[in-house]
């Protein structure tokens, strides 16, 4: 008989199969595999299984050029560490350097040339062919009314030589450099001598006393490994760190003595000290008679009796006298200033006043103080010396120096609305966003680069940074670009490849037979003469080694002038003062590995670009409160900022960090005109440290 299946029959069937399944591996295996799936799904990357190797190189992220050991998998670096016992870097690499191998893959990285549709914040960035850009740039050079300038931001490389030769071949060409603030005191010192082209360096290791006017000695100055080593050994080596600075910086916190001062009075204090030294203390090594202008210098010092300027500086005369006495009694000392990577130098006159103290104390040309080193610098025109509104074509080799450059500083030299600016830079950042052409050069660890003597080094050194990463197509070496321009302009000018140039340099060093070679792999140094051939020397440098020259022994007995024009007045305190500060290498949006967001975004260790530091009292006076959004105003414009209260900053001052924005890539508008630097006014002497500002509630 017919029987149709009812719903209840279906239930029975289902029940049976359900029970059956429990007796098969199916449900249990599925349970297991689904869990394993969550452990291996495609949302998390897979690791490479290739062989692990190590290579040596040198960091090119800042002039210090620390030695680096790269641990690689499948030939790509996954970890960078320092090289132990290295004479300068001493086994240390800074936070930024540790992540240097990421920079090639930065979100703002560019691998093909780009052209801006205009200069305004709205202008768009258009991908462009290399040939067209070179044609247009060459044409501009050809038809330039004003000067054609190559601005080299990390001088004394072998590339710098090419730049210089190229500009010399042009009738209106200038090869210019922007001094890194680290050596500003030394440069001032060099200018004070009659004899030109001498080059100086700090002999920190042997000195007894380091008096720094705001130089971040322990927060990215010189070679980090060396400075921290000296600091840690200061108990045994009887070294004293004295910091004269308005804010309680990292260095001030750690220094043996911190002398808090009002902002912008460094020059006055320097002359205060000079006064005490020359009038109240019997200096055993009286050196100032070398000065031609000693008499009027002394006469001028009368305005700088500590008591007279106390109201201006806010320091009791006692403090200054004590400091002067310590300096006089120290066997050797170094007095240096400036060098905030964001704030820039104090300006020539102040630097002279500070540098002069070294001359008075006879610190110059003395081991354990400021020594002369053999001058191998590529002679260049200092940027400030270039007349305003005179440049019609500017080529910036903006190979990161780690120091801030406000666009205004560049702009004031350009012929208004009739100029072409080219950046040889693989990133879109605060500088390149203003230019017409961005020619993407190779970046860190992508090509062979030479590491010239770092600024402020007491001896000459040389190292080679060997590439660790593949060179992306579309990028071009800065000198290759120059040679292509040259050929378009039909200049008789052949440019050797980077390797060849470096080989030449190596040969010239080898021919001197001077100095010793420190090898990274075995941590041993051997005299240069022990190396059989120049090629051998080259290959050793390439595999990881630093050449260190002998110390220049001869003492400087030269005529110099001490004159420094300082007005015994502090900067006006009627309004709030805006003071930019930075961390070497972290002063632009592009120069940091995305990993650095750990310090800027995921912790408050480093302030990111839209956070200003203010004294709680100042915040209260301005009728604001902490972590509130506010509007910062200066002559140059206004920008939204977050307020952070801090007891490390003085009253009536707004400290604004020059650094990357949190949360990824910044907007063109930010890059162009909404960043800390653009808020600062660039003075005639090329400084931008102090600007009058106001801050108000966002809602008002």
């Amino acid at each position, binding site marked *: 008989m017919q029987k149709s299946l009812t719903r209840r029959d279906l239930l029975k069937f289902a029940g049976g199969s359900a029970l059956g399944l429990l007796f098969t591996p199916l449900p249990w295996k599925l349970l297991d595999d689904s869990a394993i799936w969550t452990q291996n799904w495609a949302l*998390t*990357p897979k690791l490479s*299984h290739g062989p692990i190797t190590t290579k040596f190189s040198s960091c090119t992220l800042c002039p210090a050029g620390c030695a680096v050991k790269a641990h690689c998998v499948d030939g790509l670096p996954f970890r960078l560490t320092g090289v132990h016992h290295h004479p300068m870097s001493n086994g*240390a690499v800074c936070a930024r350097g*540790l992540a240097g191998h990421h920079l090639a893959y930065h979100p703002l990285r560019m691998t093909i040339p780009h052209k801006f549709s205009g200069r305004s914040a709205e202008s768009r960035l258009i991908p462009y062919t290399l040939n067209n850009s070179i044609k247009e740039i060459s044409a501009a050079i050809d038809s330039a009314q004003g000067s054609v300038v190559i601005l080299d931001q990390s001088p004394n490389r072998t590339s710098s030589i090419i730049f210089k030769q190229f500009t010399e071949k042009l009738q209106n060409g200038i090869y210019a450099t922007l001094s890194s603030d680290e050596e500003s005191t030394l440069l001032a010192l060099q200018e004070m001598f009659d004899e030109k082209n001498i080059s100086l360096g700090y002999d920190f290791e042997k000195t007894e006393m380091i008096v720094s006017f705001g130089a971040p000695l*322990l927060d990215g100055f010189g070679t980090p490994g060396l400075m*921290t080593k000296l600091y840690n050994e200061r108990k045994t080596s009887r070294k004293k760190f004295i910091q004269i600075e308005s804010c309680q910086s990292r260095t001030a916190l750690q220094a043996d003595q911190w002398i808090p001062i009002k902002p912008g009075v460094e020059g006055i204090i320097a002359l205060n000290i000079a006064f005490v030294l020359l009038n109240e203390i019997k200096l055993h090594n009286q050196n100032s008679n070398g000065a031609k202008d000693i008499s009027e210098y002394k006469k001028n010092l009368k305005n700088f009796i500590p008591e007279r300027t106390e109201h201006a500086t806010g320091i009791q005369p006692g403090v200054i006298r004590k400091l002067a006495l310590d300096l006089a009694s120290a066997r050797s000392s170094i007095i240096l200033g400036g060098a905030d990577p964001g704030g820039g130098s104090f300006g020539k006159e102040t630097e002279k006043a500070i540098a002069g103290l070294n001359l008075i104390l006879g610190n110059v040309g003395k081991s354990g103080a400021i020594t002369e080193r053999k001058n191998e610098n590529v002679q260049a025109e200092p940027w400030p010396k270039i007349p305003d509104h005179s440049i019609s074509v500017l080529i910036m080799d903006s190979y990161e120096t780690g120091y801030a450059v406000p666009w205004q500083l560049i702009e004031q030299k350009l012929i208004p609305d009739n100029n072409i600016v080219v950046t040889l830079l693989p990133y879109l950042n605060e500088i390149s966003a203003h230019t017409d052409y961005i020619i993407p050069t190779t970046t860190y660890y992508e090509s062979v680069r030479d590491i010239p003597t770092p600024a402020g080094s007491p001896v000459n050194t040389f190292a080679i940074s060997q590439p660790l990463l593949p060179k992306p197509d579309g990028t071009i070496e800065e000198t290759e670009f120059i040679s292509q321009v040259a050929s378009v302009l039909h200049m008789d000018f052949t440019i050797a490849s980077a390797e060849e140039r470096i080989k030449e340099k190596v040969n010239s060093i080898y021919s001197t037979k001077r100095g010793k070679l420190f090898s990274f792999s075995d941590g041993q140094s051997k005299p240069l003469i022990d190396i059989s051939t120049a090629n051998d020397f080259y290959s050793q440098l390439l595999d990881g080694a630093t050449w260190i020259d002998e110390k220049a022994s001869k003492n400087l007995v030269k005529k110099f002038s001490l004159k420094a024009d300082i007005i015994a007045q502090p900067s006006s305190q009627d309004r709030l003062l805006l003071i930019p500060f930075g961390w070497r290498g972290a002063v632009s949006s592009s120069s940091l590995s995305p*990993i650095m967001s750990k310090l800027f975004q995921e912790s408050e260790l480093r302030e990111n670009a839209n956070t200003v530091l203010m004294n709680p009292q100042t915040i209260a006076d301005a009728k604001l409160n902490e972590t509130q959004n506010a509007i910062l105003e200066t002559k140059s414009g206004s920008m939204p900022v977050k307020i952070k209260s801090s007891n490390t900053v*003085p009253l009536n001052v707004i400290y604004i960090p020059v650094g990357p924005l949190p949360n990824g890539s910044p907007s063109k508008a930010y890059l162009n005109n909404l960043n800390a630097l653009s808020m600062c006014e660039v003075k005639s002497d090329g400084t931008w440290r102090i600007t009058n500002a106001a801050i108000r509630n966002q809602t008002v």
Partner: protein
Amino acid sequence: MNSLSEKKSRYGMVIDLDKCNGCGACSIACTIENNVPPAELKANKRSGITWIQIHTVSNNEQYPNGDAVFIPMFCQQCENETPCMTVCPQNAVDIDPSTGIVGQIPQRCLGCRYCMTACPYHARYFNWWDPQWTEGMMKQLNPEVAPRMRGVVEKCNFCHARLHAARTKAAANGESEINPEDYIPACGESCPSKAITFGDLSDENSEAAKLSKEKNTFRFLSRLGTEPKVYFHSERTWIKDMAEKALTRTRMEEHHG
């Protein structure tokens, strides 16, 4: 059989706060070493994954009399009643008996975050987002540390992968003990001011063991009785008092007359 674990070590760390200048190198080295992804766009101090959080701690004096130290805070490797270990429902956290290191196995973790509420040092981090690297950085991951997936907890384990490497090396040479020089966590190795001393606390002659017994060496929240293995050293008494809550102790005495 391989007798690596027969010798019982207690790895620990002493951090000299007077040497630390808050440069952040340890934090970055740690991040790279352990394949921690860059900050997600929306991530912040509280939701990000930074195994070594460096806090700037001030004594709250007014300018210019203030003083401050930088305190790298990370898993303190508690030894006694390890808060996170005892609460984990499925043994994703445990103490390695041969090293005393508190291990976290993200692949076992179900992401209940109970351990995070248990940790007094806030040194555990949850993957709120899927990890993300730029294309090229993806090829630069440390091949010896497994990346974590969304929805699990992770934390410092004294760069345990480096101990693995050291053990492999020793074993290949037929040795059952590692060479202490082969095992230094990334933070200790990278610290430019050599503020971090790492070593075996149970080994009397190790530098770390010696420093951990010094007068001005202290631990944070030691009165919770969890016996952390990360020590701090500073001549500044105020931070010591703060860390051990010695001040609150005196305040208590006032409070109870």
